[in-house]
């Protein structure tokens, strides 16, 4: 039953990991997050040593990793549908005995695995900290759960935008812009108090991540992320289906 899902997943993983692109993106990702680790650590040593490691180090670190993921995930999602459309292979895939959902979730899962691959390197930081001075590692667990939920919601959003165009650059910039916009909305609460913008700000995945960074796993926030992912998956599937109702009278 999941044969087609596995086929798509396998194809996408091959195309991710057999091309140099993912390693380039990972290198940039690790360079940025490595610098944040260093600078947050310096901050902790200079101003907060001996005080609460959660508040003065990990919370900052997770908030910074959030930004790095935001900057890199669009590069992983941009080609997933846009390139199939540009090449014309989408016509093959959509006429194969395969449900649109198999195609979508196969791509989603492959991108999630690629993102987790990148993210897994950051486990070096808690390991390094632990080797210097053992701390309660369950403190960083919520942060990682949050980063995973955040990544998945970025992927859902990026896939949707990729399904709207046949141009990978447009897809990449479109999702980057969308994600940055959600982030910017979290800057000034005063500006986002009223009307439509308050509604948009209230669904910003960036703000919903904050309680995870503080070391809490809140089932309400997990539900929010799941709903966010389901909503964008729904939109993407409708966008793939659009060929079915265009030209109807």
């Amino acid at each position, binding site marked *: 039953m999941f044969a087609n899902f596995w086929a798509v997943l396998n194809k996408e993983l091959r195309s991710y990991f057999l091309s140099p692109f993912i390693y380039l993106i990972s290198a940039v990702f690790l360079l940025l997050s490595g610098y944040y680790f260093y600078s947050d650590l310096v901050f902790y040593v200079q101003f907060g040593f001996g005080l609460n490691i959660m508040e003065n180090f990990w919370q900052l670190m997770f908030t910074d990793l959030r930004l790095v993921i935001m900057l890199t995930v669009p590069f992983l999602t941009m080609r997933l549908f846009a390139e199939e459309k540009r090449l*014309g*292979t989408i*016509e093959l895939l959509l*006429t194969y005995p*395969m449900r649109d959902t198999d195609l979508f979730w196969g791509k989603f899962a492959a991108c999630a695995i690629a993102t987790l691959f990148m993210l897994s390197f950051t486990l070096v930081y808690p390991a390094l900290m632990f080797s210097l001075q053992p701390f309660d590692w369950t403190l960083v667990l919520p942060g990682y759960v949050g980063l995973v939920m955040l990544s998945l919601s970025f992927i859902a959003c990026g896939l949707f935008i990729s399904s709207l165009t046949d141009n990978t650059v447009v897809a990449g910039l479109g999702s980057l812009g969308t994600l940055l916009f959600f982030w910017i909305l979290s800057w000034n609460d005063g500006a986002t108090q009223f009307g439509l913008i308050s509604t948009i700000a209230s669904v910003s995945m960036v703000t919903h991540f904050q309680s995870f960074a503080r070391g809490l796993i809140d089932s309400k926030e997990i539900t929010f992320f799941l709903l966010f992912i389901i909503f964008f998956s729904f939109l993407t599937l409708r966008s793939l289906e659009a060929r079915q109702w265009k030209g109807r*009278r």
Partner: protein
Amino acid sequence: MIGVQNVTKYYGRVCALDGISFSVKSGEIVGLLGPNGSGKTTLMRILTGFFPATEGSVHVAGLDVATSSLEVRNRLGYLPENVVLYPDMSVRAFLHFCARVKIDGTAQRRANVERVLSECALEHMAHRQMGTLSKGYRQRVGLAQALLGNPEVLILDEPTVGLDPNQVIDIRELIKGLGGKATILLSSHILHEVELMCERVVIIDKGHILAEDTADHLSERIQGAANVRVRASGPRPSVLNALRALKEVDQVTEHDEEGDRPEEAVFTVRSSNHDIAREVAQTIIHSGWALHELRPVTLDLEALFVRLTREGQKEAA
């Protein structure tokens, strides 16, 4: 096996297909012939379930494409127009991916991939990345993926476009060899090619069916009269009269072609007698003129369309 009833397709306000109906019997090879933009690709996309018709219904293997899309796609092999494949994937990896979607069972998948690789003469290219393949080889990979799983129905959109003459012959033989085993609908804008491969031809233009007949009948209908092109040197009026005086000659037209030498004349002789060329030759030589060129003129697609459209207008009147 394939049934198309009253299919109409609009893109916005543009009408791409206007009430098309025809059917293809099991094991038949049918050619869909038409100039670019005539609606061939649109029709094929409807048949493969890529998008639905605005009106009308399409059946493949007794199943409605609109309501049993997955079952139909299970029985179908499709070669889209302009096959561009994943440039950084190898031919074998791509075919294995397609096989995973189309075929159950690992052993069967392997066997199928090897079979289509050999049928399309791709074994020596199997390890190559598809981005490095020439147009002809990409076309063969496209055909190979369509053949995976021995589908009952093959929809081939311009299968020989972009191939060199030898490849065209190979692919043509391959497709002809599939006749009887699979039901094939292929499109082309080359009349001659459709004649060589197909038992029956459906000619469409601007979303309408102009003619539907066996390839032989259609040939006869087009070539109902033999046309012969003659280039001879001699006094023009005398040559013209001599040709007109021949029995069974319906019409002689004189051509003024640029770059012609003044003493030479070019004529087209139209006759119901298919053996008219011999008599033309004899007449010219017996009269002491020189015969420079004598060849049968076959109608090309363009001329055929003109003819068919006129026939249609006459019938309507």
